[in-house]
Structures are given as structure tokens and as C-alpha cells.
């Protein structure tokens, strides 16, 4: 049992924190948020230069191979910074999908470009009606000569508007296939969205999208993709935890400085006890981030899913409670666009809904309860 971080891990955390503290202040971020694109390619390049986009690429593929703990620490920092750039989508999830499912050629073709920030890829998997189980999607792939034709629709794909390549999941006769589809492929439509946390995403339609023989990564990726997504959810949990730390710290500081009736509002016992409860939930959330991180690469899918879904549920509930109470304790200021608190609040709301809502993961945990 060991809750310390080694030097490399600590360096990753420090590097990310230091960079975001200098380059990603509230005002700087706010400008990006309001910009047409909603993100900064310059920030993206700087993240690449710091090596952070290679954090989840194995050393054998030229990456850092920082492992789940390294990913956790970087994601915690990007969550704390409320990063708008597609770190989680491209550098973790899409990257990991290629690492796990790609052939040597595909890995060699894509991983360096993703690590350098030249290219951005996203996984386009979730559908409006799909569930946590990978095989609940309905997008179909049919053979056409050497290649495939894809048809279907994907729902709220984060960072799809800025992606050069989409990794699209589709059902075919072999099971679930994963297909690399360039963003400008004919028949692929991206309906741009702004998400509740100010990020950019797209609903995607695929109408007879033709892709070549080399577009497919692996054969049936059902099992591998479940691991990719669990790894991604673990990182997302760390991201949410970063936002939780920030919003609670801001709330405590606000309650120390804001005076009413001649005293800081933090001196009122009812608010003190609420903040104590927020802290308890934060610490419980931290423990579940550690749990998810520890198990997100478990070969045993039951233990992996239990840890990851469990973390998603408990952190989702903490996100709801801490987020809402942070707004409440900020009073009117919590309602404005002008402080950290509302931005963290929306990031946390998005966390509750992304990659399977709290309810969906709760249902998943119930299934395991029966099986046990």
C-alpha cells in the first residue's frame, strides 16, 4: 500500500500545473471560450512540446508511457484548469484506442502525429440510444470491395469539430469494428454543438461513408474498446476531481472573505457544516479516483468495471452536491459567468452526463450486485 507518487509522476503533475497556471488563467481561458473555434491550437502545441500528448503512448511507440497514475495526475491538472483543448479525447482515448487496436502500421502512422499535436483524433462511439455495453450501438459497417461502408449516427462527440480523424465504431459481421475516418470524408456530417461546459462537440451522421481496407483497426474490438473507455473514464474522473478541488477551494476562500452582518459568511455554522460535508465528499471522491486509476487497466473486466463504474457514480454524486452547494454558497456571484465557480459547476455537470451518466453506471453496478 503506497499513496505516494514517484518523481516522474510528480514531474508530470508539476509541469502541467505550472503550464496551465501561466498560460490558462481565467481571462485567457474566457477568451478561448468566447472565440469562434472555442480552443487554441497554440496551447495544443505547447502541451505537445511539454510531452503531455504522449503521456499515454507506450515507450515502445515513442511515447512516455506514464501509466494510469501519470494520466491521472495530468488529467487532474487539466480538469483543475478547465482545459478546453481535446486532451482527454485525443491524447488519452483516441490515442489509447490506436495503441490497443491498431496494427503496427496504423500505430506508426498515427501515434507520432497525435503526440506532436499535428493531428487530432477522437473516438466516435456513443449513440443517442446506446448504453454502457459496447455492443449496444447500431451504426453499421458493410463490406464494399476491399473496404467498408459505414452508416449510422453518433451523439455528442466531444471535440469532433477540431478532429482530423474520427475513430468510428460500427457493427459488422465480425462484431464491433473500429474505423479510422478522416474528418472530410464524403457522407460524414458533423453538426457542431457547444456543450454545457463550453466545449465543442458534434452530432455525427454517417451516410454511406466509404473507407478503405486500411481504415479498420483490429477485428472485433468489443473487449479492447471497453478497456479504452474505462481507461478514459478513469481519466475523466481525475479531470472532474481537479474541478472539484478548484471549486471547493474557491468556495472556502469566498466564504472567508465575503462579509455579511459584519462577519465572514464562513463563520456561520450552517455554512461551515455544509463545507465540511463538501470536504468529506471531496476526499471520498479522491479515494475513488485512486480506485479507478488502480483498476482501469485490469485484465479482469469485472473488477475493472466495478472500480470504474463505482468511481463514476460516487464522483458524479459528489460533483452534483459540491457543485450545487458551491454555487449556493457564492450567492448571486455563483450565478454569474464571471467567477471560476460557475465554470467549474458546468464542467462537473458535464461530467455527470458524459461516458454514461451516473444513472447508467448505477444500473451497471446493480447488475454486478446480482451476479455476485
Amino acid at each position, binding site marked *: 500500500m503506497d499513496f505516494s507518487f514517484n518523481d516522474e509522476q510528480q514531474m508530470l503533475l508539476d509541469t502541467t500545473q505550472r503550464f496551465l497556471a501561466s498560460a490558462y488563467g481565467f481571462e485567457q481561458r474566457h477568451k478561448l471560450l468566447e472565440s469562434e473555434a472555442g480552443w487554441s491550437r497554440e496551447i495544443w502545441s505547447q502541451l505537445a512540446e511539454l510531452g503531455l500528448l504522449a503521456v499515454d503512448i507506450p515507450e515502445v511507440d515513442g511515447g512516455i508511457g506514464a501509466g494510469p497514475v501519470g494520466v491521472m495526475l495530468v488529467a487532474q491538472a487539466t480538469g483543475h484548469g478547465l482545459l478546453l483543448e481535446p486532451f482527454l479525447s485525443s491524447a488519452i482515448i483516441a490515442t489509447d484506442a490506436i495503441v490497443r487496436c491498431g496494427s503496427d502500421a496504423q500505430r506508426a502512422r498515427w501515434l507520432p502525429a497525435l503526440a506532436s499535436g499535428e493531428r487530432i483524433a477522437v473516438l466516435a462511439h*456513443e449513440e*443517442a*440510444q446506446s*448504453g454502457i455495453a459496447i455492443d449496444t450501438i447500431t451504426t453499421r459497417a458493410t463490406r464494399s470491395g476491399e473496404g467498408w461502408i459505414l452508416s449510422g449516427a453518433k*451523439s*455528442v462527440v466531444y471535440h469532433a469539430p477540431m478532429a482530423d480523424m474520427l475513430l468510428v465504431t460500427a457493427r459488422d459481421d465480425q462484431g464491433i469494428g473500429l474505423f479510422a475516418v478522416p474528418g472530410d470524408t464524403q457522407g460524414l456530417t458533423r*453538426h*457542431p*454543438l*457547444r*456543450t*454545457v*461546459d*463550453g466545449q465543442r*462537440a458534434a*452530432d455525427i451522421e454517417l451516410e454511406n461513408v466509404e473507407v478503405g481496407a486500411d481504415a479498420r483497426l483490429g477485428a472485433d474490438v468489443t473487449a479492447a474498446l471497453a478497456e479504452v473507455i474505462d481507461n478514459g473514464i478513469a481519466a475523466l474522473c481525475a479531470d472532474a476531481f481537479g474541478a472539484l478541488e478548484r471549486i471547493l477551494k474557491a468556495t472556502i476562500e469566498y466564504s472567508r472573505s465575503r*462579509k*455579511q*452582518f*459584519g462577519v465572514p459568511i464562513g463563520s*456561520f455554522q*450552517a*455554512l461551515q457544516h455544509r463545507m465540511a460535508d463538501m470536504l468529506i465528499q471531496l476526499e471520498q471522491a479522491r479515494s475513488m479516483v485512486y480506485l479507478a486509476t488502480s483498476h482501469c487497466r485490469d485484465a479482469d473486466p469485472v473488477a475493472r468495471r466495478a472500480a470504474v463504474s463505482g468511481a463514476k457514480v460516487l464522483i458524479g454524486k459528489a460533483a*452534483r452536491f459540491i457543485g*450545487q452547494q458551491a*454555487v*449556493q454558497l457564492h*450567492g*448571486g456571484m*455563483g*450565478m*454569474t*459567468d*464571471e467567477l471560476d465557480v*460557475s465554470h467549474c*459547476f*458546468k464542467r462537473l*455537470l*458535464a461530467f455527470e*452526463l*458524459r461516458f454514461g*451518466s451516473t*444513472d*447508467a453506471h*448505477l*444500473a451497471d453496478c446493480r447488475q454486478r450486485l446480482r451476479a455476485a
Partner: protein
Amino acid sequence: MDLAFNQAELDFRDEVRAFLRDKLPADMRRRVHLGDHSHFREDIPRWQKILNERGWGAPAWPVEFGGPDWSKTQQFIFEIECALADAPAQLAFGVKMVAPVLMRFGSPEQQQYFLPRILAAEDWWCQGYSEPGSGSDLASLKTKAELDGDHYVVNGQKVWNTLGQFADWIFCLVRTDSSGKPQRGISFLLIDMKTPGISVRPTRLLDGSYEVNEIWFDNVRVPVANRVGDENAGWTYAKYLLGHERTNIAGIGACQRELRRLKQMAAGIERDGRPLLEEAVFATRIVEVELELKALEITNLRVIFAEAQNHAPGPEASILKIRGTEIMQRITELQVEALGARALIAESPGRDLGEDLPRAVEAYLNQRKLTIFGGSNEIQRNIIAQMILQL
């Protein structure tokens, strides 16, 4: 004891329903249904004029000032029916807030000038209470009004001013004496928003909306004749106003409307191949909030009945405010939960995503204000502890 409305009340409800069916314009109704606030500035006065033509412009006003002199029960029925019919909410600041103060404490000139204009939606009123340092602790307000001949010269800043960007008039609490207790030196002024020296800056809220403002007063000259009642007695009038703001404080009608919508959503959304309404965990949440709302409706009627028995409106209003706002927030949460990941969509230009996207998530964000504004729920709990429980 009889919980049912009597025949006269039922007849009245039918009359209101018929009126709403006939007179509420479809475009307006649609916008309210979709949570589309883009036409606020036109819709609110337009609806006020329609109500006023029918003699219903001010449900709570006595006949002498042009009101229908309805009972509290009738007002309650009216509010619920309007909400369920997707009618725009009346702007409270004129009809429900400044008007009762003017009727009780205003000069005859003030009454004669302002009240008919409020009824006819000729003036848009807003409220100037909170200040950057004075939220829950309202009495600590600092905006200063100094006498200069037959004018006050007003300097200071107000915040959380709702919809003041459209306003013709603002009623303000200002400090006219800093010597004694903070509550003592406050006066109640009516200020024309066109007076030089007033500037309005909208505050962007977390849902992207602009519904509150900061207002600066820079040597704004206000005729002494626009002071309501006595100098330094404004706190009394503000407290009187507060008692009257609370008729519809529970928001039963709006909660019923949103609950109805939630149930429709849950019936139409499938999860694991069956309607969400049949999923036990989610259905339980709906049942629980529905029961709370049913109970609160009765609790509200009990308060109305007690008032009709000549009990003054009392701290019970805090119960209605707390529970009503919590219920509405809970319903908005459940609407977002029902939508799941699709609720992430805050904006998708040019597409028809149905009635609930992004309305539901915007409402969830926006309604966080309910437990903060209008006397935070923490302040309401203090009131209950002190006034009812006498702790």
C-alpha cells in the same frame, strides 16, 4: 375541513381557463413553452395589456385601484391556471411589489400617476435593493441619497437588478442617514430610469442569459416628491413589500407545469428498451417530487385559508419559499437526468432538436438562482428558526 374548491371557485377556474384559451396568443404561449426568452420585452407588456382589458391586470389589487378584488384563493387559482397554460409570468416589480407599497404609503399624486400606468403596462418597473456588499444583509446598504433643495442626489451601485435593462422606473432603497442603526436611515425612492447619471450593465449569468444587471447612480437627481412615505422609514415599507411579494412564493403552478413536462419526457424517452417512466429508480424520483408538490399545494392553501381568517401573512411564507424552490430545482434536475448525455447540448445552431434541448439544461442552470435570490433559503431557515421556532 374540506380540501376541494367550492362551486364558485370551480366556476372561477373555468372562467380563467376559457379566457386563457381564447386570449393568450399562440406565439407567446409557444415561446413560454419552449423557454424562449427572446421576446420578453414585448411579450410581458403585451400580456399585461390583455389581462388589463379583461380587468385582471392586477389580481391582488382592490377595486378602488382597478383590481378585481379577488380572494387569495382566486389569485392562487389564477396563478396556477396561467402557469399551466404557458402564459408569461406577470412582471412582479410593478404589479406585486411597488404597487402595494404605493397603495399603502404613497401620496395621492403617486397613486394617481403610477398605479394606472402599472396596470396598463405603460411603465416597466424594476427593483434596486441589493448592493455588492449587501446581499443577505440588506440593511447594510450604502447607496447614498443627499438632499439638495427639492431633490435627492443619489450615488452608489445596485446589483442583481432583474430585467432593469428594459425598465422605465426603478424603486430603490437608499441611505439617507448613516448615524443610527442601519435599518433606521433608509428611504424608499422612485427613480425614472431616464434620469441622467444612471448606467446599466447587464451581468451575464452561468446559463448565458442576461436577466440581471448592475446599476450605477452617479449624481442622479431625484425629486423629493418621488420619495415614498417618510424619510428614513424605507425599511418599514420594504418589509411591508416583502410580505406582499409572497402570494405566489411557492410557485405551485410553475412546478406543476414542469412536473407535467417531466412526466411527458419520461414517457417518451426510452431506456433499455422501455419508457423511462417505467424504470423503477427514475419513477421513484418522480413520485417523490410529485408527492412533495402535492403536499406543498395543500400547505399553500392552508396558508391562504389562515390569511383569510385574518391572520396576517407570516413567517409560514418561508416554508413555501424553501420547499417550492427546492421542488422546482429538483424537477429541473430530473429533466436533465431524463435526457442523459443529450442534455450536454447547450447550443446547436440551425437544428431542430425538439422541445427539450437545450431548454432543459438551461432551466437547470438558471433555476439555481431560486434558492439564492429573493431571500436565500439560508435566510429563510433563519427566519423559521427565529420567528416560528423561537430559537
